[in-house]
């Protein structure tokens, strides 16, 4: 996992972030202080240190806990503990599937921090908080190791009726063992760029948790080496649009590690169109018309009755 350009401008020594000396009673140097009893899904935290008018900014990413050892395997930086024991808080999300650690990179906002020694604690102000807790995996960090092909009887398919045949497998030209981490395969139906125009709810985003390109699951099954084939009947709630198929390979923690799609990187070739059901029924049409006519007729009926009683009263 890459962390992009978070390194710049940070206080770093020997590849680890050092935070200023702080006086804390139960300070421990073991990485265990980052023990994630709680999961946060954060993009940014601002740390305000008591009594010290400095602002730190952190970016938090998820790390994986190696099952073999108790050391956190860091794929970036990890924070020297002092800060963590006092401030990780706040929010416990429902049943995380695996004990994920998160690490936060602390960035000093330019002012040099000598030992302060007057810190009493920390307040955490959440900058951003998203509801769903997922690892912030970015699409560009995935490898294209799978080959996916789709065959369909005609170019314009009908939802609820037509079937498509999806074939996926590891790219044979890659060295064996590339797929050792793949545990599950998830095949999805994704919108082509032309169907995303002027529709922000189908937008492609870098971070997979926010990406809305692929909204329909074709299948999710355990990964097996070799090519797999599936015949899928297009479900009736698929809207009219142009699509392609993408397959994600997930590891044991249900995180995407690789993908493949039946179109090119620009998503222009091998696209197919699906025509949705209209959802209308003859009975609905008839009911609408009948009720509408009834409303108008009853209004005229009321007017007629009013005029008649008015005329009667005058006589």
């Amino acid at each position, binding site marked *: 996992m890459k962390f992009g350009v978070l390194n710049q401008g940070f206080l770093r020594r020997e590849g680890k972030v050092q935070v200023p000396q702080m006086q804390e009673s139960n300070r421990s140097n073991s990485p265990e202080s980052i023990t994630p009893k709680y999961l946060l899904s954060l993009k940014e935290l601002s740390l305000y240190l008591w009594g010290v008018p400095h602002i730190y900014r952190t970016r938090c990413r998820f790390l994986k806990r190696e099952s073999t050892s108790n050391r956190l395997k860091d794929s970036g930086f990890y924070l020297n503990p002092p800060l963590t024991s006092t401030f990780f808080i706040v929010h416990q999300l429902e049943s995380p599937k695996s004990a994920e650690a998160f690490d936060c990179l602390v960035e000093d906002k330019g002012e040099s921090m000598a030992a302060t020694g007057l810190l009493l604690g920390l307040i955490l102000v959440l900058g951003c908080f998203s*509801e769903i807790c997922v690892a912030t995996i970015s699409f560009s960090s995935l490898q294209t190791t799978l080959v996916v092909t789709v065959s369909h009887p005609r170019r314009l398919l009908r939802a609820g009726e037509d079937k498509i045949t999806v074939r996926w497998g590891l790219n044979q030209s890659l060295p064996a063992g590339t797929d050792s981490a793949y545990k599950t395969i998830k095949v999805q139906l994704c919108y082509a760029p032309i169907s995303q125009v002027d529709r*922000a709810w189908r937008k492609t985003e870098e971070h997979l948790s926010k990406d809305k390109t692929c909204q329909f699951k074709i299948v999710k099954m355990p990964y097996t080496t070799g090519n797999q084939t599936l015949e899928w009947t297009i479900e009736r709630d698929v809207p009219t649009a142009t699509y392609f198929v993408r397959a994600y390979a997930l590891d044991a923690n249900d995180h995407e590690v690789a993908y493949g799609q039946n179109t090119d990187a620009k998503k222009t070739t091998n696209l197919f169109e699906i025509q*949705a059901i209209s*959802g209308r029924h003859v009975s609905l049409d008839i009911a*609408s*018309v009948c*009720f509408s006519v009834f*409303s108008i007729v009853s209004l005229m009926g*009321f007017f007629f009755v009013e005029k008649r009683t008015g005329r009667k009263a005058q006589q």
Partner: protein
Amino acid sequence: MEISSTITETEPQKFALPVDSEHKATEFHLFSSAAPHMRAFHLSWISFFSCFVSTFAAPPLLPIIRDNLNLTATDIGNAGVASVSGAVFARIAMGTACDLFGPRLASASLILLTAPAVYFTSIASSPISFLLVRFFTGFSLATFVSAQFWMSSMFSGPVVGTANGVAAGWGNLGGGATQLIMPLVFSLIRDIGAVKFTAWRIAFFIPALFQTLSAFAILIFGQDLPDGNYQRLQNSGNKQKDKFSRVFYHGITNYRGWILALTYGYCFGVELTVDNIIAEYFYDRFNLKLHTAGIIAASFGLANIVSRPAGGVLSDMMAKRFGMRGRLWALWAVQTLGGVFCIILGQVGSLTASIVVMIVFSVFVQAACGLTFGVVPFVSRRSLGVISGMTGGGGNVGAVLTQLIFFKGSKYSKETGITLMGVMIVCCTLPIFLIYFPQWGGMFCGPSSEKIATEEDYYLSEWSSKEQGKGLHQASLKFADNSRSERGRRVHSQTLPSNATPSANV
């Protein structure tokens, strides 16, 4: 000797509530449905509520509809604009119709004529048909004018403000309730077995039926005035008709009506806009389920249950102490604060903060609506219907403008649109500074010190001397006397204390 006794139409009738000389109720009993006053109240707020439910039934289901009809963001924005633009002229026309035909027939006709549009939403199959059904359904929002008119005919001075505020507030509630009702009905129908793209179509029959039934109730149980219906009263000569052209002229030449129309566009119009976009905003930005987004969006409209009446009550309280100047200051302050919270709403990024800010924003914006209609009754007496219609229509114009500028297509992200809309609210509330009543003053100036600046001068300026010669101005004269309370605590000890109605909101 024969004594002939003529039995006139004005035989004293027994009313369940205490009434004044015009048989308008002087008390407001919320939990009674006594004919004719409280019954009229319940009929009018329920029918207005049903129209709001129908007009805003589409937004909470948009995530389904946009996939079924293959809508783009532009199509959705256009439909949203269309849904509120129809009522702009319908509201002005409704004021006239109430004058001519009475609120009962006018509102029931409008509701029954727009019900087909709601039924036809079930068979919409393209962006254009979707836009058309939303456009025609939106006409039903003109029932606002008939509801206010009906309340003003049934309730007298001290309670008409409350009656108007509660009727309008509880009607506007429909915009919030629909965000709860429609996703619920949709999921019920879908769970029964219908596929998504059919379930939403069936769901639209619910608001349509509700609307139809409420119109029937008005026709069967309602009456225009405490004494009876317009037609009967006009036939017996008990009701005088004013000239439409004069009424219209005096309405549109009063600049205060135009200013209030503009500012109402940025409290009520903004409320309509938010009703249209808020469910989608929460669904898309925070990745919520449709049902959850609906609940959160609903809480925006549901605040109407107290906030709009509270605005009316606040207006009356300010008037007691500070008179009309207090009403204007309160209106400006509350609406500007609403704009500020709108700006904040677009800036916050966390779900909890968004919900909290949204609720605060809704309270201020809806209270501003109530406060506006604390000022409207005093702008004109002769052309009350036209001024109310203009202000109401201005509300819809504001909704059209904000949706066109900020929420059409993909030019601004929804959060940027919301922030910019807040800025526009603050700017468009400033014209309240310009409202000036010679007899009471404005926000910055006191009442005019000239001798001719009295309430009578102001209200009688709407009648020509020929009309005054005919005695057509008597009602305005009475109203002018009652409105002296708008001077606030400064009320001269010499003014007649006999007219004991403290704040004559007609």
